[in-house]
């Protein structure tokens, strides 16, 4: 009864069902860098820079022209915030801060700025932790990725995440492949950074 032809059709059906799960591609490419603001051995906040690829089409209502270089004015920045940033709150601005394996919530972004650098859009902002986390007593890691993989985040250089602020001299940031949190149905393993002192 279960001959090869029948198996062939069943495999076809199985492939089809799987297709519904694996349906996404990156369409926005961002190179990120982050400065982990520390006080002693505690993480206070994370200052970030997102550099979009040139192909990123921001055709927002109210934005007619962008400068070739330099910061956007307050009106245009507000438009960007409203139409191309605030909606990321539900995704926690793609920040994944884990403390002993537990995902942490971050406060609302502060100091949101938009600029154009050699034709590329650049976002800068800071996400504060709701409560400082002591990395000497907890295992802390930070990653920036989009679970849906609509946005592809790539670290901007080998040391995209650095320690900043008044950190203890023993504190360090070490990048690693976060195999505990694969995305895009296991196709992509995002890069994260272990922060320790």
């Amino acid at each position, binding site marked *: 009864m279960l001959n090869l032809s029948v198996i062939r*059709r069943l495999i076809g059906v199985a492939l089809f069902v799987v297709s519904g799960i694996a349906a996404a591609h990156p369409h926005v*490419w961002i190179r990120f860098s982050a400065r982990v603001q520390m006080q002693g051995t505690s993480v206070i906040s994370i200052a970030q820079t997102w550099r979009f690829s040139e192909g990123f089409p921001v055709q927002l209502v109210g934005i007619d022209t962008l400068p070739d270089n330099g910061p956007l004015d307050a009106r245009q920045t507000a438009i960007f915030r409203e139409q191309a940033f605030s909606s990321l709150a539900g995704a926690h601005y793609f920040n994944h801060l884990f403390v002993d394996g537990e995902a942490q919530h971050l406060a609302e972004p502060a100091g949101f700025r938009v600029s154009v650098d050699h034709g590329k859009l650049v976002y800068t902002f800071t996400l504060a932790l709701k409560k400082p986390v002591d990395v000497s007593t907890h295992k802390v890691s930070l990653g920036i990725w989009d679970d849906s993989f609509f946005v592809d985040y790539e670290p901007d250089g080998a040391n995209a995440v650095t320690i900043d602020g008044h950190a203890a001299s023993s504190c360090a940031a070490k990048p690693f492949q976060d195999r505990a949190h*694969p995305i895009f149905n296991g196709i992509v393993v995002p890069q994260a950074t272990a922060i320790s002192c």
Partner: protein
Amino acid sequence: MLTVERAVLHILFAFCVAVASLALAAPSHAASAAVDVFGRPVQSASSPAQSASPTHAPSASETRHTVVLPEFARTALATSIIWQGRLNARIADAAQQLHRASTPWTWLTLIGLAFLYGVLHALGPGHGKLVAGTWLGSRDTRIAQAVALASWSATVQAMSAIVLVFGAVWFAKAGVSSVLSNAASLDIVSYVLLCVAGGWTIYGTLARRDCCVDTRALKLVPAERQAAASPTSEHEPAYLGTKLQLHMRQSGGATRFGTSKFSATSQILATGFASGVRPCVGSIFVLIASVAAHAPWIGIAATFAIGAGVAVTVSLFGLSAVGANRFIMARSFRLRARIETTRRVVAITGALVIVLFGAVQAALILSGYVQPALT
């Protein structure tokens, strides 16, 4: 058997009615009314604070996935993603150059880059490839049908993007900012149409218009039975006193060939349309950029070039499915003549699963459990 087939048709009809009703009744509960440039649902000003509150749990997907693809597969896909990013940026540059100075070389550069982008973009897992692969791999199809399905699906996808973007530019008050939202809505339409395409396949199978009639199958027919229908020859081979005739089973194949061809073509059209109606976001972005640069024809050309690239990759994927089908069929040769009924039942079951899949996905999106996917 006839009663069972009618029952299946009734179930199918009930599903289609249920999905259509859901589509009409539940748009206000849809998961996403508007989508931003990150493919995320646009939230009101009060939403961010709400979603970032301590009571809001982190995304379940943060801890859900545990399976990781083998390193070589991930490396290959990651490489294609990196090149997509580079090509994406180069396409934008080429479009700008073309807008400034229209030369054959800049046109060729843009078309070539867009084509390569389409080829790479379709390498990743996605809706269209697996629909095409499933349809082609689950039946005996020709190479031309694989190419036709891939090309038709890519053409529909390109046209869908063009209609969406230019429709938004010319008619929508919100302008192109609403394009991604409309594209996300087409995700639901795609699933509903997959129900229809699957239903059409079921109908074709039930009506014996195609599937499971293998005109190449050989059948041994006892001589006495064959004698009633046609005069026999004394020189035919015999074994232990019984004459057997090698008989090319017609199964009505010759008379139904025209109908079968029509049915297969209509299934290709329906399946390709259903899988291609949701546009590629890469094409949408290129079109938006070209409209912003007041050079829409550049975007249209790039969109069709992307479509051609997608068609090439999907065709190769489909051809591998056709090849796999033929490889397996060649090894089940002896069983082929007696499994028609089984294959028909399995084919109907498979098509019914397609219908169910489309219906469930559409229902999940409309009820807010799943976000529409933009690919």
